[in-house]
């Protein structure tokens, strides 16, 4: 692994790997887009991982869930931007998509819950519960099963940006 770069704020520098932008309207016109985009990007960014096939499978699995979350946005105007960057063993997904203000609020709350202690507990309860997995549970699962860390960042206009760090290279077999 290369030398660790830090920018002024002390946050390590993530090198950009790939970006895909598309109209949200186009994106939400077919469910299969989630699968295609996640599979395609997973393949592209996994080639120089120590185990490209396994990495790509894991990455696609996690990324698809995020895209499915974005798919359910209630604000179908504007751009969806998916960006992947890398720092050492960690891949960062930045997913920006239009949403209503109350949805943004919702994501902020959901993400702060993910960081909580009982994340695992709550995830297990949801699996045995009656309700189909909510967007919150999906985010929770990323933390529980993929050791992801999540945060919400400001985005321009009526949009939200989910930033998800995935340390897949370090997940044991």
């Amino acid at each position, binding site marked *: 692994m290369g030398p660790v770069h830090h920018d002024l704020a002390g946050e390590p520098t993530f090198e950009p790997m790939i970006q895909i932008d598309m109209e949200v309207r186009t994106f939400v016109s077919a469910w299969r887009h989630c699968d295609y985009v996640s599979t395609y990007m997973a393949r592209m960014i996994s080639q120089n991982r120590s185990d490209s096939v396994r990495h790509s499978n*894991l990455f696609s699995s996690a990324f698809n869930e995020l895209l499915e979350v974005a798919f359910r946005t209630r604000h179908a105007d504007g751009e969806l931007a998916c960006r992947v960057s890398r720092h050492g063993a960690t891949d960062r997904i930045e997913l920006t998509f239009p949403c209503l203000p109350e949805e943004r609020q919702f994501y902020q709350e959901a993400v702060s819950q993910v960081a909580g202690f009982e994340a695992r507990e709550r995830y297990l309860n949801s699996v045995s519960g009656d309700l*189909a997995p909510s967007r919150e549970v999906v985010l929770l699962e990323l933390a529980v099963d993929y050791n992801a860390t999540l945060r919400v960042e400001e985005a321009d206009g009526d949009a939200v940006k989910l930033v998800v760090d995935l340390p897949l290279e370090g997940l044991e077999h």
Partner: protein
Amino acid sequence: MSPYNLLPRFKAQYDANNQEFSISGVVRPQAIDELGPSLTLLRDAIGRVRGVLYVNVRRLTQMNNAAFHVFSRIIIDACRARPELKFVVITSSVVGWTSRKFGRLSGIEPNITVEEYDSQFYPGQGFLEEGGFVPILRTQTKMTWRHERAILRRHGMRPGIVMADICCGIGDFAVLVQKEFQPSRIVALDHSISSLNYARRVMREFDIRGIEYTYGDASEMLLDEAQFDLVTCRHSLQIFNRPELILKELYRICKPGGRVYITNEKNSHCLGEPRAESIGWTYNEVAKLFGYFEMDVELGPKSRRYLIEAGFEDIRVETFMVTNLDGDPQDFADVIEAWANVYAGEMAARRGDGPEFVARFRQGFQDHIFAALHPKGYAGWPIWVASGRRPQ
């Protein structure tokens, strides 16, 4: 991106004999209705079984949370309704997320257990897979490469191709191919983590590029279909009790018009002079010993049949003999010594062979070494090479 494929990309099956429900492929529905028939099948299966229901997700490459939730709920509900029923979910260590995700279920219901399948893949795995065989594999590949570097051209090897080496071991063959033929990409797959670690270390230390080592099970690979111009699988079909399953996978990942290249032995044909008789006896016994562990080290000449039955065309078969005259005779002797240690050592002991047999068995190897190092001697190890083209 590829055009839309409207066929369902997953398959659910129930095998009543084994009480096993299996689901495979990519399961990423938008709405749960898309899973209707599979869910019904699972519910029916639960209704019919007694004791244990096996849920096989080994070939489940992807499943989204929505689908995971409904399948899990059916199983969890069944545990609550029928406390006498047990579920065993069989995952694969190769598909990274399955063990983690399905593993959670046992924390919810004690009647659900989750097992990773691959710990005992093929009979005799323990002898060959971990550690001990590494030095032998290195020397073997060095010896076979002298022949194969010329032979490979007749079986589809050329610069710029995309190739896969399945059951790549410690990766020496991939490295040699990379240097000699410069394919544009090599995917090298094996199921031994220690071999792969070794291969990756070599790649780093020698700054080799273009080889992607990947952990996987040759009988069910995560690799996409029809993507390789050449798929090689060396000395490995012979260690599986069902080589046709592996061949099917090699066929699947090979491009139409591309070729699958396999090498195998016929151990009973190893030979030497002087002391031919003792050598011949021992290698006949080697074949039987492997047979006892369900491995067919006599497979070489059967390659043609296997390739035809797997659907290949334009089949080419040839043989070559690695001998003590190829290079340093000591290399040959070292390989035999290593075989003797494993075959007349651990394997014979596992079969329960007595000391008398083991002594005679060992003697044949010693005689083979004697022949190899003898100034007028000759010692040989024959290999069968075969390849076939996947029809367009």
